[in-house]
């Protein structure tokens, strides 16, 4: 439908004709809304996200990686192509729905990821979060573009594409890793894993890197794109519209919140699946995955690290696209000494992933050397201390759901109507007491349940039409014909 509206003024579906066509403001707005609906449901923008965490994990892991890493980006590309390119000059308010939806998607996605115990479902929810981050950056770019601020628009747009690229890298590694874990143990539930770092040390190493990358922590690539988005947000007080002025700081806070929660979410996922003691026999008996899968993951992770420490090359690669879509470009990063990145001017901000990474590596190495030479290098293995009461049962470890409990309690009541209910047997009863958690998705209850109810109702009513006589059918056809002719007559 968006295509129909776009083409209607020009009567032609080719990109050039659409670009040349003139449209009224409301029509462009409608196209934006429809594109947001179409591309948003494909990419998993809230509240159209609910199919994604059900569909992506159902596929084999390498296909899931493709779905999360590439297919959602196709939706982003389609959105960018229509809104930034074909739709012509944007109005200032176009950025607001993007910013708001992006921010809500980011926080919702990561909060849901935080409470999942299925490894692949968790990753799918985290995809939703990243799509939210990309849409925040796109919204900023659109707002800047509408106000003719080419440089900030280019910065935000570059950040969006950079993040899309990053996400396709580290999410692929994570899905491949989830697949490796599933093949080795037959389990996707992190509550039944644990201690995999001992039996699959190489996979564990690669996935640790990917987890750091997705948590937007230096020196990996996730941090660079989030840093660029933050820099773009810091340029937005010069936007003239009040509605944008009030939206952007709140969006910034939600972006920071989602970044912090991502780190927590992946500490939880990695810590439960790979660290600690094995919670099931399958996890204890797992074997390292094959060399080919490992080398694929390692290669992708190397790309993550390279994009993190040498981001200037990637930014320069993106800049022609930025010039095409928003009509500006970031300053060329190639000529800046020491390979650091400078979005606007050096006095404003700069970041050098390479030097930071080198400094950390050198000082860690030096500290280890100095202590091993001058201090003690003796090591003794003993039972865990655990304040004097170590328990041999792996069930005494913190589980994934107990790890998420503080966050669920602090933030969960607002977002997902989380309710703990305790089933305590009466004295004398021998059944065990149980603590259950009930979690509901508000998007599902508020939007989809009424919708499916309405569809059911219509279907029920239409069902009656299946049992008409032949005369009944003929008269229906006749009525429809008359109605259509009437419509045509009035239209002309």
């Amino acid at each position, binding site marked *: 439908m968006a295509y129909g509206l776009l083409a209607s003024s020009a009567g032609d579906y080719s990109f050039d004709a659409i670009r040349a066509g003139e449209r009224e403001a409301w029509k462009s707005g409608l196209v934006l809304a429809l594109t947001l609906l179409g591309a948003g449901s494909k990419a998993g923008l809230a509240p159209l996200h609910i199919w994604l965490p059900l569909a992506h994990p159902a596929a084999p892991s390498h296909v899931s990686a493709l779905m999360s890493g590439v297919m959602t980006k196709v939706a982003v590309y389609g959105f960018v192509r229509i809104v930034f390119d074909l739709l012509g000059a944007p109005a200032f308010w176009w950025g607001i729905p993007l910013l708001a939806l992006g921010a809500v998607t980011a926080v919702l996605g990561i909060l849901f990821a935080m409470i999942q115990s299925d490894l692949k479902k968790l990753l799918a929810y985290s995809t939703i979060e990243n799509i939210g981050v990309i849409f925040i950056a796109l919204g900023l770019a659109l707002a800047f573009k509408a106000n003719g601020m080419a440089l900030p628009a280019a910065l935000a747009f570059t950040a969006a594409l950079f993040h899309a690229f990053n996400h396709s890298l580290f999410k692929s590694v994570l899905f491949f890793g989830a697949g490796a874990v599933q093949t080795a143990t037959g389990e996707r539930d992190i509550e039944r894993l644990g201690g995999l770092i*001992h039996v699959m*040390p190489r996979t*564990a190493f690669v996935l640790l890197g990917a987890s*750091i990358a997705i*948590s*937007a*922590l*230096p020196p990996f690539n996730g941090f660079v794109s989030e840093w660029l988005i933050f*820099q773009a947000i*810091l340029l*937005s*007080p010069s936007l003239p519209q009040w509605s944008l*002025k009030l939206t*952007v*700081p*709140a969006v*910034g*806070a939600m972006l*920071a919140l989602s970044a*912090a929660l991502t*780190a*927590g979410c992946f*500490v*939880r996922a990695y*810590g*439960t699946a790979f*660290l*600690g003691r094995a919670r099931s026999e399958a996890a204890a008996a797992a074997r390292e995955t094959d060399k080919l899968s490992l080398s694929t993951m390692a290669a992708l992770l190397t790309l993550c690290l390279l994009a993190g420490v040498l981001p200037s090359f990637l930014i320069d690669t993106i800049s022609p696209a930025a010039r095409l879509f928003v009509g500006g470009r970031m300053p060329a990063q190639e000529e800046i000494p020491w390979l650091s990145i400078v979005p606007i001017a050096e006095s*404003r*901000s*700069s*970041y*050098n992933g390479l*030097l*930071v990474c080198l400094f*950390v*590596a050198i*000082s860690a190495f030096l500290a*280890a050397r100095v*202590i*091993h030479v001058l*201090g*003690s290098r*003796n*090591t*003794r*293995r003993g*039972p*865990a*201390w*655990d*304040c004097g009461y170590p328990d041999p049962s*792996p069930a005494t*470890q*913190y589980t994934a759901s107990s*790890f*998420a409990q*503080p*966050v669920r309690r*602090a933030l969960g009541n607002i977002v997902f109507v989380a309710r703990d209910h305790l089933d305590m047997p009466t004295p004398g009863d021998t059944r065990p007491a149980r603590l259950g958690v009930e979690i509901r998705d508000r998007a599902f209850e508020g939007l989809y349940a009424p919708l499916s109810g309405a569809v059911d109702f219509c279907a029920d009513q239409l069902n009656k039409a299946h049992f008409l006589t032949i005369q009944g059918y003929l008269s229906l056809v006749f009525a429809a014909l008359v109605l259509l002719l009437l419509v045509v007559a009035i239209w002309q």
Partner: protein
Amino acid sequence: MAVILDLAAQGGQMGVVLTLSPLLVGFTRKVKARLLRRRGPPILQPYRDLLRLMRKETVLAENASWLFRSAPYLIFATTWVAASLVPTYAAGLMFSWCGDLIAITALLGAARFLLALAGMDVGTSFGGIGSSRETMFASLAEPAMIMIVFSVALIAGSTQLSEIAASSLAHYQLRVSFGLALIGLAIVAIAENGRIPVDNPATHLELTMVHEAMVLEYSGRHLAMIELASALKLLLYLSMIACIFVPLGIAPAGAGPRAFLYGALAYLAKLAVGGFLLAFFEISTAKMRVFRVPDFLGAALMLGLLGTLLLFVSRSL
């Protein structure tokens, strides 16, 4: 020659933060004890503790992995680099442009990420409880920190700490957002360093500890690294507050040795005042329940957001 001087100043910065951080911890402990009318351990005690730990044999749990063994060094290195990026006695040092305030926050985040993982490595219930609570605190403290960074950066027009210090020196004025940011940053600093009322650095009462629970399984040289990292973190936050809000005396970029000397003296004075205020605050409040901490940190987040919003709005007036 100039390059050598620059390098020396940068190296001096790294050395200063490393050597002063245990002193700051010792000083705060001493002041706290004196305020409670106890004699307290000597100020130099943290150095002795660190040396003793480094010389001791390390006891590892039977199922500790490579991550558990390498994490302390990485945590220490990340914190050290972050602390060296904060101007102490001089601004605009040779490598100060490597990372801005957001990068410093993220480096600390990386250290916390590794520490929380290390807490879960041995698979004990205490490690898990510590990591889980630390994650909850961080998920609020980090956005609060970013919002504070936003308001400070919007005032100074830069996220580089050296530039921020220079700009607050150049036109020093009272601003509402600045005040809000100061309170917010103080709250974040208290929470991030695990001080009272969020966490008690001296406790070993099991169910109340957060930081101590995560590092419960560590001993010997590994523990020394982690203790040093947390001392560095305390120093980092005090220097950050001093650099943003009281930049008096910091040697500007390209200054000579005399300015460095004055800068160093001013820095020592600021640390002493900061340490005293921290100790005073700690003895005058009680530790709060774990689930009241989100409210405490939420206040910091709201203060940061309010400050940023004010700046966004006031820009057009």
